[in-house]
């Protein structure tokens, strides 16, 4: 589903990714762990198409399409969702308007009918409720005045509403208390666990993985995958740290 081959990328001319190769087949959720500065967020941004993140070598395909040739909004319409490590505030634009326009823009790109205002609000309320978020918060400007945990929950509500094929979640678990972590973990399982879907979780901690149970765990160090394994690898890292795991 998502195939990354020998991906090299630079940010401000500085090489950050140095040959990442990774294959996430449909029906699987993988996790990427790694120390600070290893390139985890860069990988997420490159895959989502953030300006300023330049690919110097290698390839990435999504459902067989050349991901790197697509604009960020085209990647979204194709079914890719990036959960931001630091969700962005947009004053003056309500969550409801933001998500309705986003969803309908995606639907138009795919040649589907737009969702009516009524149907959209119903969907948004449903998803907010499933994530344990007060639906009234969706009337507020995007992420403005939200706590760190509320922002991350809101990212999951967005994922529920947009219903992507593939979720790329950049440290969605950081800054969450235990209850929120559980809600987010359950959200990921409910929204992304399906035979035709997939996901890549970027995380520092093993705790979220106990809820999501990834099919594979990869360690990213200095811009390359240095080890891969099952969830036991994540447990081992939790005990030993990255320095020893690399040895």
């Amino acid at each position, binding site marked *: 589903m998502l195939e990354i081959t020998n991906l090299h990328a630079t940010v401000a001319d500085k090489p950050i990714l140095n040959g990442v190769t990774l294959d996430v087949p449909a029906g699987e959720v993988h996790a990427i762990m790694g120390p600070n500065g290893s390139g985890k967020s860069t990988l997420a941004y490159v895959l*989502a*198409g*953030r*300006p300023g993140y330049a690919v110097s070598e290698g390839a990435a395909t999504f459902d067989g399409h050349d991901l790197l040739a697509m*604009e*960020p*909004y085209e*990647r*979204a*319409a194709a079914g890719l969702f*990036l959960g*931001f490590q630091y*969700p*962005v*505030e*947009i*004053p*003056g*634009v309500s969550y409801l*308007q*933001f*998500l309705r*326009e*986003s*969803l309908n*823009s*995606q639907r138009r*790109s795919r040649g589907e009918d737009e969702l009516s205002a009524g149907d959209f609000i119903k969907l948004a309320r449903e998803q907010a409720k499933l994530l344990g978020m007060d639906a009234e918060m969706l009337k507020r*400007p995007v992420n403005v005045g939200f706590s760190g945990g509320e922002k991350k929950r809101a990212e999951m509500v*967005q994922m529920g509403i*947009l219903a992507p094929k593939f979720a790329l979640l950049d440290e969605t678990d950081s800054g969450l208390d235990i209850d929120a972590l559980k809600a987010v973990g359950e959200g990921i399982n409910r929204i992304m666990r399906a035979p035709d879907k997939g996901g890549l979780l970027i995380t520092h901690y093993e705790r979220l993985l106990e809820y999501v149970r990834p099919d594979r765990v990869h360690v990213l160090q200095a811009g390359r995958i240095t080890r891969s394994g099952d969830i036991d690898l994540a447990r081992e890292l939790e005990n030993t740290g990255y320095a020893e795991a690399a040895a």
Partner: protein
Amino acid sequence: MAAPFPTRKQEEWRYADLDALRPVWEQFAEPRTLTIGAGESFEDVWLPTADDVHVRRVQIALEPGAKTRLFVLNTAPVYGRIELDVSLDEGSEFDLFGANIGTGLSTNEIVTVVKHIGVGGRSRQTIRSVLNGKATGSYLGRVEVARGAQQTDADQSVKAMLLDRGATANCKPELEIFADDVKCAHGATVGELDAMQLFYAESRGLDPVSARALLLEGFVMGLWDGIENAAQHESIATAAKDALRRVV
């Protein structure tokens, strides 16, 4: 007898498009006058017209306890000017919510003089400008607090968004205070669309033009939140959205 034609040496006409104004000056030379009686409330919404040059010059006198709220959209294709001379007597309140939305070579400006002449008056001016191409958008606002106009509370919030390198914003809040127990605040910023906000919106599926339009709506549309008349709210919101679509 019409008033003499202005010159750029006059501060309040410094950024004006006088060439565009000259042929139509006579009809605008005399300002309109409005008096809001003691304790009365007045609310109005000023929409742009189809004219290339559109000027409004209005003097407003607020009697004690009077309230006035103006919502103005300034988006003339060549030259738009909204000029207000407001005096506030004791305990009166004046709110101005205004937007300059300009494209091409246009000049749009909001020029105000707000005179607090009585005790305990309150004035709020909130101005947002969105400019592309080589457009100019200006706010020149002088707040005068007379001797004895104690407990005056005056605020000016001015923000401009420049979408192209050639666009110009002039923000000039000015205070002239002759009383010692007053609160006068002003803030002015000039910026451009935030790259991270754009990427966030695009990553959710909005194409670049729609993402820009949405962010600009967020920047401007809050101005109209306080309009009580639903039909008037609808008309200025629609006109502002149309104007934003032209500059995006």
